[in-house]
């Protein structure tokens, strides 16, 4: 059996279930307790777990991320919420220089089992500083695992896996998808880190994507269907480690690949996917891989800029037709 839940409620269930199971797990961040979360992901958690385990911090991202790292090294399992990943930039020192490197530099003496989570990606007309995408930034760092998924059922199972993981895990959510609804299985379940999901089967072209761009890819696939083009849509769900097998098997079937990635193009997730496909499935490709990214610029505020900036079904369809050598 399953229920329909919004992404925010699915994520909350994951945290609540893990906190009931494991006394060492606690949640810390700005406005997570009394205000019930800036985006209401932690609604009601203060009431259930009290101030010891649901903790409002001052606006001090570097400081509380570091407190999380120290607590994790010393036997606890923190969940550190960033109001958005844009503000986590202040904490990159602790995430990249410490959480990611604790195990290596201590030669296994210390682990750092911590979850850093919050929304990533553009969310309307929020302008340059509030619209960035962070999967590739974090996934570039050995020592970190990176999850990015907006399907409520999968996001719940992945967050539970992240909380139980012995490594630091960065979880990327989405501000504008917190109300996005989906089936969430009843009862206890985990979704493994490192496995992609095929959201739609198809035979003519593979579209690889993640986070909210999967929905754009699905819309494009529906349109393409009407024109007789059958697109397979893969949701990476985990960015690092990336599920090469699922991507390669799909490309071996369809022989064509479009990567849809909200991040900027340079050295991003789309570049990584294109690399592994040319490396492992070169002989299967019937066309060069094409990627659809956000524009290679900072996002301005005006609505005309937002439309120009983001990937959308029209741009995806155009890319698909390009790899299929269809010209219309």
């Amino acid at each position, binding site marked *: 059996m399953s229920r329909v839940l919004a992404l925010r409620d699915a994520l909350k269930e994951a945290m609540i279930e893990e906190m009931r199971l494991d006394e060492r797990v606690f949640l810390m961040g700005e406005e997570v307790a009394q205000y019930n979360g800036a985006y209401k992901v932690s609604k009601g958690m203060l009431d259930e777990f009290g101030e010891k385990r649901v903790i409002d911090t001052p606006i001090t991202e570097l400081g509380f991320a570091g407190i999380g790292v120290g607590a994790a090294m010393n036997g606890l399992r923190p969940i550190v919420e960033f109001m958005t990943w844009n503000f986590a930039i202040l904490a990159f020192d602790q995430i990249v220089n410490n959480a990611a490197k604790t195990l290596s530099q201590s030669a296994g003496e210390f682990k750092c089992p911590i979850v850093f989570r919050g929304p990533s990606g553009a969310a309307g007309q929020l302008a340059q500083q*509030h619209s960035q995408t962070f999967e590739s930034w974090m996934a570039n760092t050995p020592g970190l695992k990176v999850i990015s998924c907006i399907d409520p059922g999968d996001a719940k199972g992945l967050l539970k896996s992240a909380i139980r993981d012995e490594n630091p895990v960065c979880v990327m959510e989405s501000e504008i998808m917190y109300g996005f609804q989906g089936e969430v299985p009843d009862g206890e379940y985990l979704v493994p880190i490192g496995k992609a999901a095929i959201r739609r089967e198809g035979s003519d072209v593979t579209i690889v994507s993640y986070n909210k761009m999967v929905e754009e890819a699905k819309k494009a696939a529906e349109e393409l269907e009407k024109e007789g083009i059958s697109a397979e849509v893969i949701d990476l769900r985990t960015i690092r480690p990336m599920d090469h097998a699922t991507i390669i098997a799909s490309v071996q079937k369809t022989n064509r690949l479009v990567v849809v990635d909200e991040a900027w193009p340079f050295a991003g997730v789309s570049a990584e996917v294109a690399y592994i496909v040319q490396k492992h499935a070169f002989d299967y490709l019937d066309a060069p891989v094409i990627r659809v990214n956000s524009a290679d610029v900072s996002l301005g*505020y*005006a609505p005309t800029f937002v439309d120009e900036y983001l990937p959308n079904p029209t741009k995806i369809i155009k890319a698909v037709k390009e790899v299929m050598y269809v010209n219309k």
Partner: protein
Amino acid sequence: MATTTKNSTESKKNSSTTEFSPKTYMEWYEMMLLIRRFEERTLMEYGRQNIRGFCHVYIGQEAIAAGLISALRPEDPVVTGYRQHGIAIAKGLHPNACMAELWGKKTGAVKGKGGSMHFFSNEHRYFGGNGIVGAQIPIGTGIGFAEKYKGTDNLAVCMFGDGAARQGALYESLNMAQTWKLPVLYICENNHYAMGTSVERTSSLTDIYRVGETFDIPSEAVDGMDPGAVHNAMARAAEYIRAGNGPYFLEINTYRYKGHSVSDPARYRTKEELKEYMAKDPVKLLEKKIIEQEIATEEQVKAIKDKIKATIEEAVTFAQESPYPEPHELYDDNYVEDDYPFLT
């Protein structure tokens, strides 16, 4: 300070007790009312979806902007956070440019690129609204560093909220500013809340001016509902800084009457608290003082109100009639070069 010379023989109150010239009071009043009406209209236009994104208004904090225009010089650079419309207007940005920016129009202060959180104007020495809490603190310090380096006697005004005062960047900046005797006026606009979090819940040190004292920086708490008090504190600070003594720290106590941003219902504070601060409304109190102490007549005050009403209407019409930027302008101003090879 100049006392008013206005003849007040028919007055019940003695206007000779006023501390500043009538001109100063009227300049404050006009600026504060302009900001108040601009922000009220901003909220209305947000409701009509002409303005979008994150939008934080300055209603309740106007007396701080007033002090800025009378106590400091136009050449003094200013940097602040995202609650910035009032400061930008006080620095001389035209309400038309500000309103058009809120609408995301090409004629806006930054051509529709910034929206509510990011106005800038080199001409007016306005170094922006910063969206990252506390980021403007070291930046303001660096702006002051440059003034000293260039040998001017300008001071850099570095404004931030009570929430921002918890970022490590403040402590690092204060230390360097004091060590290097930088001409920086740090202004913490303490409106008592950072989103839903009260000052008491984020620190054991609730008198924020004492943060300045720990670095031996002269520091004061100021009544931010009274433009006269704000002016006097800023004037003292400016004199000290311009004499080459280094930074100065003001905690200006104020209140925001609206929620943190347009989407915040502000349930974390009591009706009583809001009422208490409403009774200290800086715009209303100043207007009362002007009438009661006969600094100006009711007709003169009404003339200012009418003028401001017309200014706001003009700004909205200007914004409405201006075009959105063309999509390709998204690529402008990412690099200084016109022919930068963007990836596609």
